[in-house]
């Protein structure tokens, strides 16, 4: 007995793979190795991604990856934030940002303009937030 792999200990093979082994497909393979996008500055965590075309039929564009198609699909019914898309697709934020950047270039989605980071939202909006919270 010189080896003791899972087969010999009687545990199922899946015990070979845990989270430390990493994903089967390396995440940045989906972006063809790109780690940033020109749109980076606009893709704040809470920037909303909105599909331009809200028709129900799936996109038929051979240049898009399944993940691109998923993003457009998720944003069709209602706008979703960059953070929500990353969580929903279970992909790192950096990967999702690159994919959204591609969709912006292809004009399949647009992104809401977040409040400029340098300035706080105006008093009117803050008051509306307080009213909204009170009504919860």
């Amino acid at each position, binding site marked *: 007995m010189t080896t003791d792999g899972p087969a010999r200990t009687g545990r199922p093979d899946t015990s070979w793979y845990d989270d430390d082994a990493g994903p089967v497909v390396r995440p940045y393979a989906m972006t063809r190795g790109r780690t940033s996008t020109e749109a980076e500055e606009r893709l704040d965590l809470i920037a*909303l991604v909105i599909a331009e075309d809200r028709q129900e039929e799936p996109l038929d564009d051979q240049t898009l990856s399944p993940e691109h198609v998923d993003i457009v699909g998720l944003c069709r019914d209602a706008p979703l*934030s960059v*953070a*929500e898309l990353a969580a929903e697709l279970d992909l790192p934020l*950096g990967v999702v940002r690159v994919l959204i950047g591609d969709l912006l270039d292809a004009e399949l989605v647009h992104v809401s303009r977040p409040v400029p*980071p340098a300035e*706080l*939202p105006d008093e009117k*909006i803050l008051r509306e937030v307080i009213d909204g*919270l009170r009504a919860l």
Partner: protein
Amino acid sequence: MVFGRSERRRKHDAPDPVTLKILVAGGFGVGKTTAVGAVSEIKPLRTEERLTEAGRPVDDLVGVEGKRTTTVAMDFGRITLREDLVLYLFGTPGQDRFWFLWDELARGALGAVVLADTRRLADSFAAIDYFERRGIAFMVAVNCFDGAERYPAETVREALDLDAEVPVMLCDARAKDSVRDVLIAVVEHAMHLTTRQREPALP
């Protein structure tokens, strides 16, 4: 699927909603995700960022030289206040060394809540210090754990050496109403600071 899409279907010509965020910070195990979950309309979601080079100066890789990436997770929730007004709550990563991620989270944040546990007040120092230095409107909410001794808010303020204007409240991170009141207090505080900033300085 966690998103209530049918309810949120928008009219095609509706303007893009305004999104805002509030951070929920504090030490490990203080109840950040519990607080987010108490008021969020969705089960708190988790998003991750994979760190490589960015973590290098601070990550001690001795013994794990083969490990090139670290994953840092952020839990967040959403409150749709109106069809065109959405508030996101982000729990900050527990590990203090991910400061650069805090910078991304803090950018454009409306305000921040520092959750504190009176048994481990020192765990909230780092977050308080961060928001003070960045000039971000923040307040301290003491999560009243069952079995932990209660202290008046003023005692906590003294112990944390907070400015008189920083709101301090006692709360229960599990209770929706309690967390909602904390959020209202932090937005009111942010509004107070904004108004003051915009007023011309006294002669």
